[in-house]
């Protein structure tokens, strides 16, 4: 119960007049960005990225003051001494064959990987606590992450941010393919945004539309980055990304037209006043190439051309100062080609231990151009312990998706630009030079149906065993305690008397 109480103020002898007059530049900044890409299949992909950069040392002890950076995640970093944290929650599967290469793909379900600082002594314990806390923050079942589905990759999943020394014992990786992503996961994710969902691009994040899509993937990436060009000190970067693929072709009754309002049932009205940059990019590459014409409305004031994922692309750029209501767009085609000669491979295999750790197979292969590579793994079906079955065992058991991390040679060489200045969707993965770009793809999770026992079996076995024991015991007991002797038949039983009665009635002599 809140009650208005007239506070009797104590006369506190507060020291000093307070030095609150200085106007120091804000040490944190927010950039937000939406990329809308018409996909070859006629669908439309929308990728949101919100990037909060904080020039602060989060690892220090004591008082902590947050402005744009969310307090919950900041506390997490300092408490568990995290170096990097990557969490993605995905519903659906990115169909590379139809949709082209994604900016950022994630496996179906939940994926969590984290790098801990060298100072962490018990990484497994921190990992467990971290997954539990994250499951509370994001309302996801990350608490089911334990040693049975956690691996420590040795070649893949290098730190994405600033790192000196990569001792893989501080890395943990886990996937929960079963996790279902829904509104309850989106709401806490939105709360982490400085403008919540009240202004700026986040206005478009309306749950009932975002989950009415073919693909929904939301992610949180935290990593340390360089504060300045000379990298003398470290800043923390939080990227919240959200990718959705709208089935515009079907919902648009055969037309490939789309508008922000039709996709999100909202329009952008005002920029987030806290953001230093707030932009919408629309892929209009195909307008210049083919005969296909497309028209974007309102006409963009500026365009942006760059080599994205190996191809040259043109984007219409809308700075959010003009309220942009975009109307028409057409498709474009993205192709991948591998043209580099094969190199020596690397194979790392870590066999599973039952109920302790899963299998881990990592291969570094150079793929020849226009070839098909198959990796097949033989496995046996085994019976689990009866308490290990899930409540719906006939649904089957998930095998986590495989990961393909590739450095693909670029078709067009990109000019090495300033990393800090380039748009966010192009700067998540560190790339050494412009001749190649980095792609990480995930396969679908595999659903294996295991032999399911009859779950009333234990009770049946108990009853059957007891009955067998009781029957054996009964005859044994009878044999030992009874005395057996031959007895002369006496007067005869009920049947005999009845027979005699009938015989007498018939006039036949009795038995």
């Amino acid at each position, binding site marked *: *119960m*809140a*009650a*208005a*109480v*007239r*506070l*009797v*103020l*104590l*006369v*506190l*002898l*507060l*020291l*000093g*007049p*307070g*030095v*609150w007059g*200085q*106007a120091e530049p804000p040490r944190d900044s927010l950039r937000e960005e939406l990329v809308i890409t018409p996909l070859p299949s006629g669908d439309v992909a929308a990728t949101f990225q919100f990037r909060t950069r904080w020039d602060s040392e989060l690892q220090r002890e004591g*008082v*902590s*003051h*947050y*402005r*744009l950076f*969310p*307090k*919950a995640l900041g*506390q*997490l970093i*300092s*408490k568990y001494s995290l170096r990097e944290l990557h969490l993605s929650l995905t519903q659906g599967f990115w169909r590379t064959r139809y949709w082209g290469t994604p900016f950022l793909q994630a496996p179906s379900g939940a994926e969590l990987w984290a790098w801990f600082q060298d100072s962490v002594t018990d990484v497994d314990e921190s990992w467990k606590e971290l997954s539990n806390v994250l499951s*509370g923050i994001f309302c996801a079942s990350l608490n089911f992450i334990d040693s049975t589905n956690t691996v420590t990759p040795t070649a893949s999943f290098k730190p994405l941010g600033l790192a000196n020394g990569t001792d893989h014992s501080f890395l943990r990786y886990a996937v929960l393919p079963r996790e279902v992503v829904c509104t309850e996961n989106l709401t806490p994710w939105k*709360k982490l945004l*400085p*403008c*919540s969902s*009240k*202004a700026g691009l986040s206005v478009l994040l309306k749950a009932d539309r975002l989950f009415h899509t073919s693909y929904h993937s939301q992610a949180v990436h935290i990593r340390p980055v360089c504060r300045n060009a000379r990298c003398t000190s470290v800043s923390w970067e939080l990227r919240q990304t959200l990718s959705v693929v709208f089935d515009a072709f079907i919902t648009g009754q055969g037309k490939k037209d789309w508008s922000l309002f039709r996709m999100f049932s909202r329009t952008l009205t*005002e920029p987030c*006043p*806290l953001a230093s940059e707030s932009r919408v990019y629309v892929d209009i590459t195909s307008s210049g190439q083919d005969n296909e014409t497309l028209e974007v409305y309102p006409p963009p004031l500026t365009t942006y051309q760059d080599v994205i994922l190996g191809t040259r692309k043109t984007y219409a750029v809308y700075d959010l100062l003009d309220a942009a209501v975009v109307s028409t767009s057409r498709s474009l085609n993205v192709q991948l080609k591998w043209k580099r000669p094969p190199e020596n491979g690397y194979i790392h295999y870590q066999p599973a231990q039952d109920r302790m750790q899963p299998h881990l197979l990592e291969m570094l292969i150079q793929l020849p151009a226009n070839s098909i590579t198959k990796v097949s793994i033989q496995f046996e079906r085994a019976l689990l312990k009866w308490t290990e079955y899930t409540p719906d065992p006939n649904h089957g058991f998930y095998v986590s998706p495989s990961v393909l991390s590739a450095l693909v040679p670029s078709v067009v060489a990109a000019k090495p630009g300033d990393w800090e200045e380039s748009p966010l969707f192009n700067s998540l993965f560190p790339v050494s030079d412009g001749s190649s770009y980095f792609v990480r793809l995930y396969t679908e999770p595999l659903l294996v149906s295991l032999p399911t026992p009859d779950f009333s079996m234990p009770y049946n076995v*108990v*009853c059957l065993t*007891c*009955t067998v*024991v*009781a029957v054996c*015991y*009964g005859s044994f*007991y*009878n044999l*030992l*305690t*009874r*005395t057996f*002797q031959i007895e002369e038949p006496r007067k005869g039983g009920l049947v005999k008397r009845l027979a005699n009665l009938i015989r007498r009635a018939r006039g036949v002599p009795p038995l």
Partner: protein
Amino acid sequence: MAAAGPAATDLEVVRGKRAALFFATVVIVLGLPLWWKTTETYRAPLPYSEISGLNSLKLRLMVPVTVVFTQESVPLDDQEKLPFTVVHEREIPLKYKLKIKCRFQKAYRRALDHEEAALSLGNIQEAETMLAEPSEQAEGSLTVYVISERSSLLPQDMMSYIGPKRMAVVRGIMHREAFNIIGRRIIQVAQAMSLTEDVLAAALADHLPEDKWSSDKRRPLKSSLGYEITFSLLNPDPKSHDVHWDIEGAVRRHVQPFLSALSVAGNFSVDSQILYYAVLGVNPRFDSASSSYYLAAHSLPHVINPVESRLGSSAASLYPVLNFLLYVPELAHSPLYIQDKDGAPVATNAFHSPRWGGIMVYNVDPKAYNGSQLPVSVEVDMVRVMEVFLAQLRLLFGIAQPQLPPKCLFFGPKSEGIMTWELDRLLWARSVENLATATTTLTSLAQLLGKISNIVIKDDVASEVYRAVAAVQKAAEELSSGHLASAFAASQEAVTSSERAFFDPSLLHLLYFPDDQKFAIYIPLFLPMAVPILLSLFKIFLETRKSWKKPEKID
């Protein structure tokens, strides 16, 4: 042949009887205990009698008071009697099973030379610093100096003085009954500085039956090992207001001194955040007379809930969180004032919610809008804000305004915002509260375990229970001998251990394995085995009785 037949049959019958008896013996002597032992739930022994003894615990809180007499404070012949000790004991009437007695143990002695010198100074503050120098006093103890009736140390109309440390000054009297009169004055002062009924009633508020003033008593936070304090600046309208607050400096200057003084009572962590587009849950009403907006007292309870979802739970620790919100109203709703029950605006423009925190509304100076375009840059006056938040913090920790005896000189706390004896009073209250909580937890655990026989009691749970019981007893002992610091530590240990035992997950392992299912599994085995044995035993019993009745006939 005819003779051998019945003899052989008799032999067979006897053998059958023996076999049946043997079966019965094996089952009873070997089978039953084996079954019992293998299916038994493990229950470590617990100190049930001691736990029930805790319920009728009698707490005796001792406050050691040193009373120092200067020359000319009492008549000469009275001075000859010094030093000696007087005990003043009083039961505190509370409707609670814990019986609490307050015991002021007054050790009278004469002043030492340096004390004499200090008290002959003309200024009470100087005297105090001189007296405080030699040594720190133990927690919970008090020193009362009795000065001469005509001393100029205090203003002439003042009878006593209460200092910020554990020290007070009382005027003496030249009278035949000097010790009695002075003794009463000392008790008055000592009670104001240590234990009063109010303090204890507030500490036990959760355990006492409801009454008319209990909601006021339930304002302070419950005792805990630590507390998290979060300052949040709510800016619902960042388009119009660009609000800056120097929270880092304000915490360092105003909050940290207070918390470091309080650090005996628990661990504190402070953090802050700024939340944009966070609005209150109530639409303020417009008052055309003053052309301002107001929040009525009855709508304040609805203000907090929508904001709370944005505040974010604390991920890093399990301690209770105290929230202090500074709300800068949006341009469309400013200026915004909070009204009390009578409709008058609250002077501080702030209110607090018991056990949750406080909210202060900070209106932007209307002059700032003139001439400049939006957003208006706003610098928050942190001194004004922190005064309110610190006062709320004191209330939420249960540090009430002291009730002074009449004609008492009192300056209020120093820069850290809390007086040493207020801290002692907090420790007394927290110790008693911890003891009551631990006792309740232990009693309900013992009751629960007694009622449900399926619960497994592991050895580590049992050892936690033993530790908790021992800690409660130790705390009670330390309280009665006046060692406040160690009593508080022991009471905290009692609460921690008792809760760890109560919430141990191993208690739940077999809880959902009910008896009917257990017997459904055993019956297919037990019934076919038991029926033949019982029947043959019954038959043997009948035959033996028959043979006892006619013994001669067998011969």
